[in-house]
């Protein structure tokens, strides 16, 4: 290694450290904050918690609404994922494998719909949800979240299906499968990675969705994680330590998903936007 190359290598490593530090720094600080006592929060330095305390976590876990909020979010995200995966896969199948006439137009329309700003549709949605008596219900959130995630699902899965060799579907049909038989027994199993990538993306989307959840929820009965964090109760001063602990607890599922499935997530995200 020449001196010049050594310098370049050093530059690259420091750039990498900078990037990783910038990405994880705020999250790390939140973690550090969550272990500080109230008294330590208003002193800086010391940088590290002195003494370490788990009081914030204890306070958050003892809060009865925590479990409610986590369950709500899990139900909403889980059901929305299932719902948009089923509907999205069927639609994508018709658009790519079955080559419905006007598929290009339908895909373009779906893409256009996905670019609607939620704020532009939230007032009628609120009126309709109120009219149907579905305010403060998980059902309304599931319905809205799965629809808003549908365009992404349709695009990602249509791209995955299109990448399958066409003979696969044809062979299944020749062998006597019905259209839906070929779909369920051949096309779906072969696109399992694509379905999985879509599922993770929709799950993260529904877990994080804020505007609709904020408008539709009234009480803790249907409150989801983002709403709970945004409305974190504080009597006089903002309880930063407890907010930090609650954020850590409530985003751990997402962090775990990212660490286990980063390749799938990346694959899904690029599939959803590139091949257009």
């Amino acid at each position: 290694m020449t001196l010049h190359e050594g310098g370049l290598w050093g530059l690259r490593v420091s750039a990498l450290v900078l990037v990783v530090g910038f990405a994880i720094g705020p999250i790390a600080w939140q973690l550090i904050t969550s272990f500080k006592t109230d008294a330590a929060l208003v002193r800086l330095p010391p940088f590290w918690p002195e003494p370490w305390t788990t009081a914030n976590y204890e306070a958050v876990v003892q809060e009865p609404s925590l479990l409610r909020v986590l369950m709500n979010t899990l139900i909403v995200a889980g059901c929305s994922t299932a719902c948009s995966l089923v509907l999205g896969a069927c639609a994508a199948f018709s658009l790519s494998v079955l080559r419905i006439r006007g598929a290009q137009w339908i895909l373009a329309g779906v893409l256009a719909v996905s670019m609607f700003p939620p704020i532009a549709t939230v007032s009628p949605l609120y009126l309709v949800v109120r009219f149907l008596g579905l305010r403060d219900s998980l059902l309304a959130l599931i319905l809205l979240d799965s629809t808003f995630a549908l365009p992404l699902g349709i695009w990602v899965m249509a791209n995955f299906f299109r990448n399958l060799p066409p003979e696969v579907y044809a062979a299944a049909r020749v062998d006597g499968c019905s259209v839906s038989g070929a779909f369920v027994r051949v096309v779906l199993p072969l696109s399992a990675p694509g379905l999985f990538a879509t599922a993770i993306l929709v799950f993260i989307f529904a877990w994080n969705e804020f505007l609709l959840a904020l408008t539709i929820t009234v009480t803790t009965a249907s409150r989801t994680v983002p709403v709970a964090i945004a409305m974190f109760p504080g009597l006089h001063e903002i309880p930063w330590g407890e907010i930090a602990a609650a954020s850590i607890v409530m985003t751990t599922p997402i962090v775990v998903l990212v660490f286990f499935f980063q390749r799938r997530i990346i694959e899904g995200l690029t599939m959803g936007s590139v091949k257009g």
Partner: protein
Amino acid sequence: MIAVRRRTQVAFVAPALILLSGVTVYPLLHVVWLSLRRRLLIFDIDRFVGLSNYRRLLGDDRFLSALANTAYFCGVSVALELVLGVSVALVLNRVRRARGVVMAIVLLPWAIPTVVSAKMWAWMFSADYGVLNYLLGRPVNWLGSPFWALNAAILMDVWKTTPFVVLLVMAALKEIPEDLYRAVRVDGAGRIGTFWYVTLPLVAPMLVIVAVFRTLDAVRVFDAVFVLTGGGPAGTTETLSVYAYELLFQTLQFGYGSTVALSVFLIALLLTGGYLLVLRRLPSRL
């Protein structure tokens, strides 16, 4: 090709399209209708007023300031995200060891809820006890000063959404054939020349696509500003979505609020049209 009845094709695609029309297309038409009415939920007032809500927009200082804030937020954050996104993608592209862990860490800001990141940054921005001022060694009133507050929201947005840009740019970089780099090197191009004449032009179409996604997201920015600053101090960070939300759900003006909300849609539509023109002028990919 094996024949499929049209009815079957339609049956597969219909449920999704019906749901999409019901939950996104219908409300959009409804919002246009609402924007032509004076509707106050508390007083039971609901009557047709024609275009008067639109006339009101033009004389509404709060709307104009929200429009300016949104434009500033959008322009600065998207520009920063594109520049940073390309730079970070070039850095990460070289990573061989522990690539999975590095990519997962870089993805984290994108994956955690915006609300959570807004709270996280609000705590770091705290004027008295915030870690940012501690690291800087000087007291900046991040969220309390009209100048810094909007820029603070931009900083948070850049932190949160640059990973998305990075991913897509990396996908585009992967498509550039290695031979091309070799050929350029043989021709005697340096690193900067290679970047300027090979990498950037080949990544450009992807950058336009990313810019579309990011711009449309930034135009409707809500969570980040609503939770980080609540539109304050004194409305200096209020964006169109935040203003529309307050009109709709805090003062319950469903007519005028819908007009403001619809303006976000119309701006998004205009910008999409503009980008499509740009995309059409770019040479198609290799």
